[in-house]
Every structure is written in C-alpha cells, then in structure tokens.
C-alpha cells in the first residue's frame, strides 16, 4: 500500500509538472499563432508582447518567451506613428532581448531582433542616425548569418532594408532581389527546432519579392 501511495504521489507530481510544461507550450503556441493575425493592429501586438513577457517572467529561463516579447515590441515600434515614442519602446525591446541573449548566447534569431531594434532607432530620424545605427543593424545581420547560415530571417531583414533604401544609396529592387530570393530558398528548406521556435517571415519575403517583379 505504501508503494501504491508513492506511485500515486509520483504520478500526481509528474502530471502536475508535465502540466506545467504543457501549459508553457500551450500558452506560447496560442500567443505565437496570434502574432500572425495581429500585424494590422498595434494594440494586439502590445497585448501579445505583454503576454510573452508575463510568461517569460514567470518561467525565468525560457529564452523564447523573452524573444517573442522583444519581437512583438520591436514590431510595435514599426507601427507607432508618433516617432517620439519609438526610442522608449525600442529600449524596452532591448531589455527583453538582452535577457534572451543571456539565456541563449550567440543565437542567430536573437541577433536578428537586435538588428531590428537598431533599425527601429534609426527610423526615428534616418538622416541623422544612419551613421550610428546603420552599422549596428548591419553587423547584427552579418552575425546572425554566421551564427546560423540556414536561418532565412537575416537575409529577409537585409533584403527588406535594401529594398527600401534609395537606389542612389545602393538599394532598390535590383540589389534586394537576389538577397530576398536566397532568403526564400532557405525558408523552403527551413524546419524550426520545435513548434514554438521562430518560424515567421516567409509570407513577408514572398510579398517583397512580389513587389520586386
């Protein structure tokens, strides 16, 4: 009977802890799924950023939760119309991604976010800030490519940057296209490490390529 008790207790504890992990995966999955539908609505993006941050803070050692929180915050900056608010939001994203970075150093996906944050700062006043944030954004993309050459996202970011750079500055569709194409090729072969690992951007690259025909 004692044995039976022990088994019951073990099962009870195990189901509870499995439940904990299931709960994490489930919460992440439902929030990640919501990202795709929230691009048009900044308020939802902020809600998701907060959700991810809540998960991250409760879990403490899940880099992906911090990663998605930072991703949502930085995407939120791109939608913020009031440029004077962007720096503070981008700083918030930096704080989150730095936590992800300390849990998962030298990660290609994290370098992508860092590049996006630098671009967000730059877009506040491109003429004045290009010298400071341009190289920071570029070097993080380069780092992301080296950290994981199969990751399609660094090239998506690079191609997107090139596409929106004036031709006189060495941008435009002509230079962007091969980079975006290479990104798409990588997307076609890309398998995320798990169902909650980053797997966004394919639609974006297809859309950009479509605009460059």
């Amino acid at each position, binding site marked *: 009977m004692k044995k039976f008790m022990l088994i019951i207790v073990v099962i009870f504890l195990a189901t509870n802890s499995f439940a904990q992990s299931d709960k994490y995966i489930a919460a992440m999955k439902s929030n990640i799924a919501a990202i795709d539908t929230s691009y048009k609505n900044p308020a939802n993006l902020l*809600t998701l950023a*907060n959700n991810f941050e*809540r998960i991250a803070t409760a879990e403490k050692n899940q880099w992906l939760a911090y990663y998605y929180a930072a991703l949502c915050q930085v995407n939120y900056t791109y939608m913020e119309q009031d440029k*004077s608010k962007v720096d503070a939001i981008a700083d918030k994203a930096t704080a989150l991604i730095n936590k992800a970075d300390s849990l998962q150093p030298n990660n290609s996906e994290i370098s992508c976010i860092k590049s996006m944050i630098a671009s967000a700062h730059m877009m506040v006043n491109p003429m004045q800030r290009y010298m400071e944030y341009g190289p920071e954004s570029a070097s*993080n993309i380069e*780092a992301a490519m080296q*950290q994981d050459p199969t990751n399609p996202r660094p090239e998506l970011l690079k191609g997107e940057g090139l596409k929106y750079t004036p031709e*006189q500055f060495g*941008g435009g569709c002509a230079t962007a296209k091969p980079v975006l194409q290479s990104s798409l090729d990588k997307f076609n072969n890309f398998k995320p490490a798990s169902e909650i690992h980053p797997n966004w951007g394919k639609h974006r690259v297809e859309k950009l390529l479509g605009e460059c025909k």
Partner: protein
Amino acid sequence: MKRVLVLVMLLSSLGSKAQTRISGKILDTKGKPLGGVSITLKNTYDGSTTDSLGNFSFTTTEKGKQVVEASIIGYRPFEEEVSLTSSALTLSISLKELVTELKAVVISAGAFVASDKNKGAVLNAIDIVTTPSANGDVTSAFKTLPGTQQVGESEGLFVRGGSATESKIYMDGNLVNNFFYSSTPGIATRGRFNPFLFKGTVFSSGGYSALYGQALSSALILESKDLPDRTEADLAISVIGLGGGIQHLAKNKKSSWGISYNYTNLWLAFKFNKYKQDFYEIPAYHQGDANFRIKTKTGGIIKYYGYISANKTGFRNPDIDSAVLKDAFAIENLNTYQNINWKDNLGNGWRIITGISYSTNKDDILNELEDANNQKQVITNPSFYAFKNFTLNNRAQYAQARVVLEKKMNGLNTLRFGSDYFYSNERSTYTLYDGSKFSETVKDNMESVFAEADIYLTNSLAAKVGSRLEHSDVISKWNIAPRLSVAYKFADNSQASFAYGLFYQNPERKYLPTTASLDYSRAAHYILQYQKLSSQHTFRIEAFYKKYSDLYKTSVNITGRETAVNNNGFGDAKGVEIFWRDKKTFKNVDYWISYSYLDTKRDFLNYPQAITPSFAANHTAALVVKKFVLPWKTGFNLSYNFATGRPYYRIAYDNTQSKYVISDAGKTINYNSMSFSINYLPNLGKTNPKVFTVWVLGINNVLGQNQVFNYNYSNDGNRKVAITPPSKRFIFIGCFLSFGIDRTQDAINNNL
C-alpha cells in the same frame, strides 16, 4: 481510507482550478484612462493588457495571497497584494507618470543646443560645417543664430550688446583661453579647433548654468566626441592647405587613439582672391593634435586631447597718418593646449565629472613704420609716429582643475556641485622704438565653488536653481552669483521659460596691472522665452533685459598705457529675438531664419558717456537654406547675413577739457553678405566604400557686396579709413577623404 486520501488530493488539485475573475480600470493621476498597460498576477501567466479606455479583465486559478502588478513605459510600476478567493475582484489602479527625459520640459531659456542626441537641439553637428557663412569655423555657425552680432573686424562672439571678451568658451567643462588664433588688426581670426572634434555644443546667449562663470554675456560649451565608430584615416586637400589624421579604435571597442596634422598656407588662396593688405609673410599654420579615449568598466570615459600650433603672418597697410608711409604688422604664435577629463559612475546614482587642462600661449608681435621701399622708419617728430615702431612679446600659461559631483535623485531630479581652480600667468614685454622695455606680469588664482539642482516637479514644470561663489586674487574679493531657470510645458508641447542670473567678470588682461582697487564687473540677465518644437519645425521667441554694472573704466597712465581705473561703468541691453527653422514646408529643403532686435547703451573703457557701442547693430538677421539633391549626391547651402549699420566713434583725449570726448561719430552702411557652398559626396550610398570623399566649394560674399565694419581715425582725427574685409570674396575649394577600415568582421567575430 487511503483511497479517500488520494481522492481528496485529486479533488483538491482539481478544486484549485476554480477561477477567479479580476477586472478593473487603470487611470493616470489626472484621471485619464491608460491603454496598453500590462497587468499581471506576479510570477504567473495570468494577466491582461488594458484597452484604450483603461479597462482590463482576466481570470486566474491561483488562490490565496498574490501580487498584482501593473506596468507601462513612462509610468511608475504598480504592485498590490491581493487575497484571492473565488469571488470576483475589482481593482481601480492609478499610475504615476515618471518624469523622463523624453517627456519632460526642457530648460532652454537663453540656450541653443547643437547636438545629434539631445532633445531640444536647434542644430545638429553637421549644421556647423554645412553653414556656408561659417567656413567650417565652430563659432561662426552660431552667428546665424539670434543674439549674435555680425562683427567682422575682430574674432569672437558679440552677444546681446556684450563685447567678445564677455563670451567664454569651454571644452569638456574646462575654459579654453586663446580659443581663436591671436588677433590681427582689422582681420577676424578663426577658431583653432576643428568642428568635427565636438559631438555637442550648447551656445548660451544668456542665463547660463552656475557651472560656468567669468563671462558677462555668453558661454559656448563644447563637448568632445567619445569613441569613434570605427578606425578611420582622413586626408584633406584644399586651396588653403593639407591635412591628415588617423583615428584608431581598439578591437574591443573600449579605447581609441588618434593623431592629426594640418598645414595651412594661404599662398594659393592669395592667387585666387585679391587682398587689400600687402602680405609679406603669407599666413602659414602648422597644427598637430593627439587624443586618446578609454571607456571604463563602470560606463565612464577618460578623454585626453592635446593640441599644438605654430603660425605666423605679416602684412602691410598704408599708414593712416601719412600719404607715403606704411604700417607693417607681423605676428608669430605658438600655442599648446591639453585637456584630460574623466566622467564616471560612482554607483548609487552618483557621477563624477572631472578634468585638468593646461595651456600655453606665446605671441611675438612686431609693428613697424615703413617707407615706400618697405624700409623701417623711425620718426620722432611728431612723436606719435615713433610709437608705431614696437615689439610686443606675450607669454602666458594657464592651468585649470575642476571636479563636479552629480547625484541623480528620483526621476530626473539631479543635484550637482563642485569646484574649480584656475591659474593664469601672463607676462607681456613691450619694447619701444628706442629700445626701452616695459615688462609686466599678471598672475591670478581663481577659486570657485558651485552647486546646482535640476528640479522636475512634473513632466511639465521644471526648474534649475544654482549658485556660484568665486574668488580671484586680482580682485581679492568673493562674489556670489545666483542663477535660476524655470520652464513650463503647455498641453500642446510648446513651452515657456524664464531665466535669471548674476554674472561676474574680471578686467581684461590688457588693462592690467593697475594700481586701482577694483571690483568685479557685473551683469544681471532676465530672459523670457516661448518655444514650440516638433521634429520638423522649431519656433522660438525670446525677450531679454540685461543690466550691466561696475563695468571697467580705463585711463592712460603715466607710461602711456591704458589701464583699468575704476568700476564706474554701466549699461544695459534689451531686445527681442526670433528663430524659425522648418524642414517640412519645402520638400528636401531645410531652412532657418533668425532675427534679433537689440537696444543697448553702455559707458565703459574710455567712453565719455553711455553710448551704443560700435559692436552693436539694432537689427540683425540671418537666413540659412540647405537642400540636398539625392540623385546628384550634392548638397547646396546658402546663407544670407544682414545687419543694420553700426555706430562708430572717434574717442580722443581732450587736453583742454582733460577728459575723453567724442570728436566724430557716424554709422556704417548696412551689412549684407551672401555665402554659398556646395558639397558633393560621390561615394554616397556605396556599400562599404573604401574611400568616402566630400568635395566642397564655398564662396563667401558671392555678390561682392560692400561691407564696412568700422572706421580707423588718423591721429589728428581729420582722416578716417573704413575697416573692410581683407578680400571682397573668398573662394574655398577642398576635398576631404576618409578611408574607413571596416570592422564588421571584427564585430561578428566578437559576437561568435
């Protein structure tokens, strides 16, 4: 029995999944709903984000004592312990706005900030070099802002009725003596320092901080750059000389060093431009500098800057008193400047900003009366001719030590206090035509202590309150200078500011030593400002009143030298200034307009009564227009400076009345000058270009408009000669190359 226990356990585990609803509303302290606030049950997944009406609602299965957190950027985070039972909980939360740099009012009365980072900056660093009338000279760019005079006959900033000596220039907190190349009669000299050395500049046309003193009118505060972005070599070739330098950034990006050398020779420029003076010694300048910068572990930085320059020039003007003779003037100058400073975080919100500077200056001036064949002439009858032959040798050493401690309190509230010590030793030897020498040394030790507090009551109301206590050996008295600025931000983000301050200053070196017992000269500033800033527009209007008292009066002493004799001088200045900058109305065009009205009178030096000084025009205006044409990779810049005529006087000693009198007076013609420059950047937009080139073509006074700055009088007062610019136009052509050493690869390697 045991089974029952298991059942109980399972039930309790299920039972705990019963949900509690938590809902409520979040407002700011003014009762306005806050959207986007994250509300969280601490250390759980449970929470919500408020909608635009500040409402939130979520459910949780947690029980017992829990903590509810609410947070949003720009507000103080909120925490409250709650006890969760299964009954619904309603919370009403009020969040207090943090006073942040982004939102807070900027204390701006009297100050123009030129910076890339600073909020409230009126200009950015590149504006200083792309303002055509400035010719790449740091201070000249500020002559397109309100409050400054278009004085062309001598260097320096003449601000709001003040003379150039009433404006002081600071680099990283330390006073820079001899900021300009040594004066030459009738020709304004340039500032010594390259504008690219500085990342930020604050030009205060009055009411400046208690951290600075000894300037009755204005402080120009320059902040040198931190670490460079990358290792780079530069080369400059122009009609006025050659220069090159290197800036090396360490691989770990924690330190850098740099050196540069420039040789300036106006030989080629003289071939292009016709000069009024006969230059027998073509101006030539050697200039070298070195720097290092080290980032400390605690987020601070140590910066060193050292500079040495040697230059000489000599020119002849027709002698004003005679038809055939000439006046020859030559100067040789050697100047060194070193500045090391350290800024660091001491923990607990404390910061230290400290620095030491040391500089030396050596001027050897020769003045000669010459005949038509450029041979020296000594004429003793009439005797004033004889005094046209002299040499003047000046030797000066200056040292400064300064420490400022800063404590950040909550929010932006900051307390700053510190002390500086300034030592100067200036010796001049005057040798007359007959070889008789007059040698004099003036030494001074000046100590000051100062304290200042930035007080932010809310994001819309802030004050800067400070005071400065100074003691100079020359005066051997203490002075106390209170300073106050208050700023209030309106709902539409425009703001109003007020500034008040007392400012003290010692007599100029050239009127010392003296046997008279002197006090400090003094100015009180009252400034009212209204400003409206957006990212595309800047509008500001400022009114000021400045009261001068205890200004120095001078008199000729027994050896024929003009020295300070008492503090009986006085004066005032009042005016209104407007600044408008617009980057939006015209596509790709950025322009600014400034207008200053000034009404000033003073009695100082040898003035017989209170008069409008010859360096003050009633109306001054400037227009600067910049357009960058992207497809051409070319920037076009135009500036137009205007000022109404300035008064001029012949002030002479009348022996019968035994006092100074004005024997002649008038007003110069209006000042008009249009300057134009083109910058061509052929490598713009190339990814990782090996060389980045900037071509510059600049023309000053394009239209060749006549400019008269003042008049010189002959000894008998019967003849006057206009002081005009040395050449009608000045054409500058230059090419600046920078060879970047791309460190992207290093950055990647460091990240791997």
